[in-house]
């Protein structure tokens, strides 16, 4: 597929396209805020969507640094703004719209109870530096969530402050490196499976380690022999995902832990796939030293178009002393925050974030956990795994599962079923959009060709899965008939057809610019 040539894409071209998910009313294009009619009226005609009182007259104390030039922001009224964002939202597919089978992302239902309780003023209006006596309820909540997470993982300590999964990864790796430095042990390498999420090697490198990939065996698991062959006293850690990114349980985990610990290295677990293990396996029993969790995956906090997340890190006793600040601790007079590298927290590696962590996500995750309860976790993971296996059983004759046997909470297919049709995984996914679905994860993990990684989560009904299965089977049949042009030109019914990503990268336009120079004073 080649890029269109000589397109002047800086000119807005208005057109009619249906909303995401198909079957909705036709919609006009939505111009940029800056392009809205009347966005740049001057003087008495300029608009504002917020009524603010006139500032009291004072002698300013700006030290002569008052801004001289206009900023160049557009001005619109409140109804215009509300309409703008409402119409934009209608171009998005979302979990609320339909199944979002993104493997490795756990796109589960985002309960609205979470949103309600997070907005209680007694939580939402707390300043992070208020006196501790005035925020005891918040500290209790953080401690309670920590208890849930420690029990679920079977680990003795948890650091709450990382802001996302990748942040949790770097936090965990920093703890490991701090522990090694504390015992005067300088190591240089980290082992990462070839199937790992890209954040793993990026994190290891960010911590100053060289990354060595470990291959998978024909069962899709980490090749234990290759791993052992690669181990040495210069290895700081292995970063493993379990279940792995192929949706398979790493059943040699204990042997891996033994080998890794045998050379004095640490075992880091990427907990992105924890949804398969909730209430059934405590990762702490797998011999791990360190594990991050994704509250925005396993624990239902919303993805919000790309964040915010929250990535608490569970730590073994050997790593707990290095946990980043602050620590929530219980003292005689109530809960406190240890905010300095002193006392119990003397060996803490310091801060990786301002303030205390993603409190808004803690509240949501706790409400979610309280909803399911300790007694409900096994049914949650059971349904997640049941749904994935149902998809596997219903599609394995028309798609090509990459590995034999069952799956856990996600199932991996590859593009062998597309054979000589000329249809690629990408084409197949784009055609799925026209069926009204968000595609599954594509081209990840890298260890199979043209990967399609499907994760339905526990929140899909059987009816929803059956409709999805029917659409997938239809498409597979169509591909088998070599209807290549149909796939390569998909999608046809989304708010946009396939977009020129090559052009976007060759001539990056990362912002809107006014056509003419502003005539405002310098």
């Amino acid at each position, binding site marked *: 597929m080649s890029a269109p040539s000589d397109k002047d894409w800086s000119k807005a071209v208005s057109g009619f396209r249906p909303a995401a998910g198909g079957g909705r009313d036709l919609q006009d294009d939505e111009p940029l805020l800056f392009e809205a009619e009347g966005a740049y009226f001057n003087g008495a005609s300029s608009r504002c969507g917020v009524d603010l009182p006139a500032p009291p007259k004072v002698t300013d104390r700006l030290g002569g640094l008052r801004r001289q030039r206009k900023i160049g922001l557009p001005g619109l009224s409140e109804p215009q703004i509300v309409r703008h964002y409402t119409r934009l939202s209608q171009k998005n597919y979302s979990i609320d719209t339909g199944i979002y089978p993104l493997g490795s992302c756990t796109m589960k239902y985002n309960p609205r109870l979470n949103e309600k309780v997070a907005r209680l003023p007694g939580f939402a209006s707390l300043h992070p530096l208020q006196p501790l006596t005035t925020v005891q309820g918040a500290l209790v909540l953080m401690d309670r969530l920590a208890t849930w997470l420690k029990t679920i993982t079977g680990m003795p300590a948890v650091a709450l402050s990382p802001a996302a999964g990748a942040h949790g990864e770097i936090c965990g790796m920093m703890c490991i490196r701090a522990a090694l430095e504390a015992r005067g042990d300088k190591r240089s390498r980290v082992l990462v499976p070839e199937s790992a999420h890209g954040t793993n090697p990026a994190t290891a490198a960010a911590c100053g380690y060289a990354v060595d990939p470990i291959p998978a065996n024909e069962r899709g698991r980490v090749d234990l022999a290759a791993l052992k062959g690669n181990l040495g006293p210069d290895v700081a850690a292995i970063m493993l995902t379990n279940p792995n990114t192929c949706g398979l349980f790493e059943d040699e985990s204990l042997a891996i832990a033994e080998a890794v610990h045998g050379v004095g290295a640490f075992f880091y677990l990427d907990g992105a796939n924890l949804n398969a293990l909730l209430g059934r396996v405590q990762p702490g029993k797998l011999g791990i030293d360190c594990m991050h969790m994704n509250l925005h995956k396993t624990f239902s906090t919303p993805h919000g178009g790309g964040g915010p997340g929250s990535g608490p890190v569970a730590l073994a006793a050997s790593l707990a002393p290095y946990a980043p600040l602050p620590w929530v601790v219980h003292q005689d007079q109530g809960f406190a925050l240890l905010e300095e590298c002193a006392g119990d927290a003397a060996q803490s590696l310091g801060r990786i974030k301002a303030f205390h962590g993603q409190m808004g996500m803690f509240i949501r995750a706790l409400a979610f956990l309280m909803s399911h309860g300790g007694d409900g976790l096994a049914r949650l993971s059971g349904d997640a795994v049941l749904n994935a296996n149902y998809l596997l059983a219903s599609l394995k004759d028309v798609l090509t599962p990459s590995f034999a046997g069952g799956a856990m909470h996600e199932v991996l297919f590859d593009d062998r079923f597309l054979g000589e049709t000329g249809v690629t995984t990408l084409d197949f996914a784009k055609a799925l959009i026209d069926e009204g679905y968000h595609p599954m994860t594509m081209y990840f993990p890298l260890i199979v060709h043209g990967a399609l990684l499907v994760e339905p989560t526990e929140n899909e009904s059987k009816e929803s899965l059956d409709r999805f299965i029917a659409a997938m089977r239809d498409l597979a049949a169509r591909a088998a008939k070599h209807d290549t042009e149909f796939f390569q030109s998909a999608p046809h019914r989304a708010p946009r057809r396939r977009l020129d990503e090559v052009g976007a990268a*060759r001539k990056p336009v990362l912002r809107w610019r006014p056509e003419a120079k502003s005539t405002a004073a310098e």
Partner: protein
Amino acid sequence: MSNIRYTKDHEWIRVDGNEATIGITDFAQGQLGDIVFVELPEIGRKVEKGKEAGVVESVKAASEVYAPASGEVTAVNTGLADDPAQVNSDAMGEGWFYKIKLADAKELGDLMDEAAYKAFTAEQDKH
């Protein structure tokens, strides 16, 4: 074209006396897809054989470009900044990356000639 040699990382080097022109091969550009950006070394920089000299980016991949031989960079293909697609359309000619003043011609000894490289890529292709 007996004065072209190839590396296992799919760079080519064309020698002309003491100067050499370096680029990535047609096979490499095919693997990368539409090239969107090329990061070239600065003129005057001393590159080392086997070490990173630049980066070539497509939409789906970013690859280090390694120096096939050591030397001082004497020229870079500034045209690639405006039109990186030349790497796709003419990897062995207009899509060249940079030129160096060879430090040690003996370093070319372990590189592949055209026939060896053809065989090498034939092997790579059957994955």
